[in-house]
């Protein structure tokens, strides 16, 4: 697993907290459609939160607009349901000015990658200390079923009766292109995996970007079925584990190699390659090209979809760099703020009239 860095989260409370999943539930009725993948993610998060050891009042969930963005209403922490696409910007202002808080952003494929694309990439390049959970269901749910920036080319929806003509974003490739320091993917139906990824993200110092495949059973049902059904999932999904060779399939009959002379990674039959040719997963590779190559593995039917932590590297967070500048400037101050202000007002060319 990636190196632990406790600086990534707010400091734990001095006394051991005895919180349970129940403490993170609110009295609000959850209003997602029955069968929505969001329920599983909510439950997974509520039962994971006590692990953080952070008191509820120091945790903040900030969301944008969309089905997923109702999330903060259901978490008994501080929370803000903001405006479409702007959660990363709002969360940046909060995180930078309040380094004592643990700030989480809940967003969706339309919110983060369409209307809010600019804020997402800038939060990632700055490496703001935010944990960004992108619920990707590859459709617009709240507006009732238009294609999204992650819908496959040719997607037939209400707004694209002849099929969509625009190619989708690959969210992980995008995040890696923006130099994100922590990039992972998980899936709504696998609580154990989801929580392991949350854990790694919480320990990361800086922006942690997690794509969560989430099923919209109303407008895009079964979008990730090949990764869930017993007949296909073992052959389609590659579980990334740090330090482990990239083999998959029910009997490990598939593997990932880096063919000499090629730029990317490819899948081969394990029996057909020498064991040393199989790529050993290392999320800490400083060069983003490896994680990027991993992000390009899946095919249109989701065959060869890696899940887990693609990349986890260390780089100073924006929050730390800003705080250091503030601390450095404040260290030079000798007087009270009032005295400093008096001095500032009286600086420059002044003259006195008696």
């Amino acid at each position: 697993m990636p190196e632990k860095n406790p600086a990534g989260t707010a400091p734990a409370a001095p006394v051991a907290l005895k919180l349970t999943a129940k403490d993170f539930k609110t009295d609000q009725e959850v209003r997602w459609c029955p069968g929505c993948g969001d329920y599983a993610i909510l439950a997974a998060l509520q039962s994971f939160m006590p692990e953080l050891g952070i008191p509820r009042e120091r945790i903040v969930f900030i969301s944008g607009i969309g089905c997923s963005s109702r999330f903060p209403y259901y978490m008994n922490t501080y929370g803000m349901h903001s405006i479409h696409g702007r959660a990363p910007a709002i969360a940046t202002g909060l995180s930078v000015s309040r380094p004592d808080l643990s700030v989480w952003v809940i967003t969706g494929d339309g919110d983060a990658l369409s209307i809010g694309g600019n804020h997402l990439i800038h939060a990632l390049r700055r490496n703001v200390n935010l944990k960004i959970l992108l619920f990707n269901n590859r459709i617009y749910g709240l507006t009732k079923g238009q294609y999204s920036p992650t819908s496959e080319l040719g997607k037939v929806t209400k707004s694209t009766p002849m099929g969509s003509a625009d190619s989708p974003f690959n969210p992980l490739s995008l995040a890696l292109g923006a130099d994100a320091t922590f990039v992972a993917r998980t899936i709504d139906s696998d609580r154990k995996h989801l929580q392991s990824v949350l854990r790694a993200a919480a320990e990361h110092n800086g922006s942690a970007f997690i794509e969560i495949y989430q099923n919209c059973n109303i407008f895009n049902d079964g979008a990730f079925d090949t990764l869930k059904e017993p007949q296909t999932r073992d052959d389609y999904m590659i579980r990334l584990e740090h330090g482990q060779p990239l083999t998959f399939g029910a009997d490990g009959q598939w593997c990932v190699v880096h063919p000499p002379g090629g730029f990317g990674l490819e899948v081969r039959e394990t029996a057909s390659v020498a064991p040393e040719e199989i790529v050993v997963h290392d999320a800490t590779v400083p060069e983003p090209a490896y994680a990027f190559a991993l992000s390009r593995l899946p095919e249109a039917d989701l065959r060869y979809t890696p899940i887990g932590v693609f990349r986890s590297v260390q780089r100073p967070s924006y929050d730390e760099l800003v705080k250091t500048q503030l601390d450095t400037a404040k260290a030079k101050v000798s007087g009270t703020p009032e005295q400093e202000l008096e001095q500032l007002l009286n600086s420059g060319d002044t003259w006195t009239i008696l």
Partner: protein
Amino acid sequence: MAKQVRQLDRVVIRFAGDSGDGMQLTGDRFTSETAQLGNDISTLPNFPAEIRAPAGTLPGVSSFQVHFADYDILTPGDAPNVLVAMNPAALKANLPELPRGADIIVNTDEFTKRNLARVGYEANPLEDGSLDGYAVHPVALTSMTVRALESHDISKKDAERAKNMFALGLLSWLYSRPYESTLTFLERKFAARPELVAANIAAFKAGWNFGETTEDFAVRYEVRPAKMQPGTYRNITGNMALALGIVAAGVRSGLPVFLGAYPITPASDILHELSKHKRFGITTMQAEDEIAAAGAALGASYGGALGVTTTSGPGVALKGETISLAVALELPLVVVDVQRAGPSTGMPTKTEQADLNMALFGRHGEAPVAVVAPCSPADCFYAVLEAARIALTYRTPVILLSDGYVANGSEPWLLPSVDELPDLRVPFATAPNGPDGRFLPYLRDPQTLARPWAIPGTPGLEHRIGGLEKADKTGDISYDPANHDFMVRTRAARIEAIEVPDVEVDDPDSGTRVLVLGWGSTYGPIGAACRALRQRGLPVAQAHLRHLNPMPANLGEVLRRYDKVVIPEMNLGQLAHVVRARYLVDAIPYNQVRGLPFTAAELETMLEEVIKNA
């Protein structure tokens, strides 16, 4: 050689040249010398948006006007008494505003055939008699500067560039200015290149000495110090005063300040200035766009900081949705709009007051916010403190409408003492306020109607807020019709309930029948016009609005006191429209949108007409 010295009560000088000629710097230095002497001052820079427009062309002309007097003045002056023209373009661009008889000091070196042709002069105006009505002083500024710097080890280009200091030296001599501050300034500015310090000082002194020896300037002038209130002064631009006001708001509220901003003319200077003051706990973030700048500021406010975002009109348009969110969340947010000529990119370096409608009405839904406007450069300091007071006390976005004229103009500022500034401290919520130990985020203070400011990190007050309509008191999501009606009316009442001082009326005469109502940067020209009219025995009253929303409680009564109400604005009648709608007063709009402030003279002419017909 002793020359005759003549006393003047006021002078308006305009320095004009290529945007690369250093006219803004020259004007600044002359202003500083003049401030040291104790004159009252008002300045007006005027420059193109292009950083270096093609040299010698009309669009590339940059100018700086300074008005100084031995009494208190309100404007940078309508028309210059003296024009310093560094090239033919500067002469051609400024001549139409120059009254006959004015002095023109020209740099003859630049009046070459090629330069004259470039701006469409068929003949040399210095020779063809077209300037006969003016007092022209031809000075070979460039060549004399180069000659004066012959012994200096600098390039010819650097020597030529020092010609603005030669001009400054000449003008400083002509108006008997104390120049020590300029020498100190040059030493500081070129500290890394001592040879340029020496050269610029030499050029300045050469200009001074030229004045003293040349026959062309037979008279030297003096403008005595103005009678000003005792105290310590500094010359200040609106943007600088606004930045200092934000620092002061942080100190007086005891809160960290968070500025989110995206570079935009003419507001960027505020970001530059505040980024120097981190020692006050001020975080400045140059955001990825205008929207993020407002969003980050709002996020910081949510966390207990004083969130501020500074921009111009195009930026406010982009921030509209975030301001609406702040209206719904009921959190403090100060939005500074340094207005410029629109629509769209418009004329970025030119002034206008056409964002009033946007500030008052430019959001979706019923989303009222408080709006304040400074009336002069120094007033920007106090106006932003007032904006912060309202934002913090009433937990609301406040839009401050400055403009290019007050932002870049300057005037002497009598420095306040810090402990006389308003106390802006407000409490955070610390304990549950509802029955059974519940926290009700929308339970209001009965006086201010403000909701509690419960910042993350406060145990027991965990709560969720958002842009969806909220139920009264609990803040839960609500689609209840009666609740929405109640909340919309409450948000409106909350803004209406903001305590603002009564508008003051300046009306020294009796039997006055005409009132001039203004807002923002028109204060100076309106005031100057009113003074001139009263001196001529024509009574006129002046009232000026600092609060555009809510408006002062006595405004309706004030408006009805007069037979005629005239509202001059640098827009097509936005305040007039509001006043007519709200008070049913048949106000007379007087409008101009030329990217320039009103002149006192044109307002005087217009008002005289109204008074005579009243």
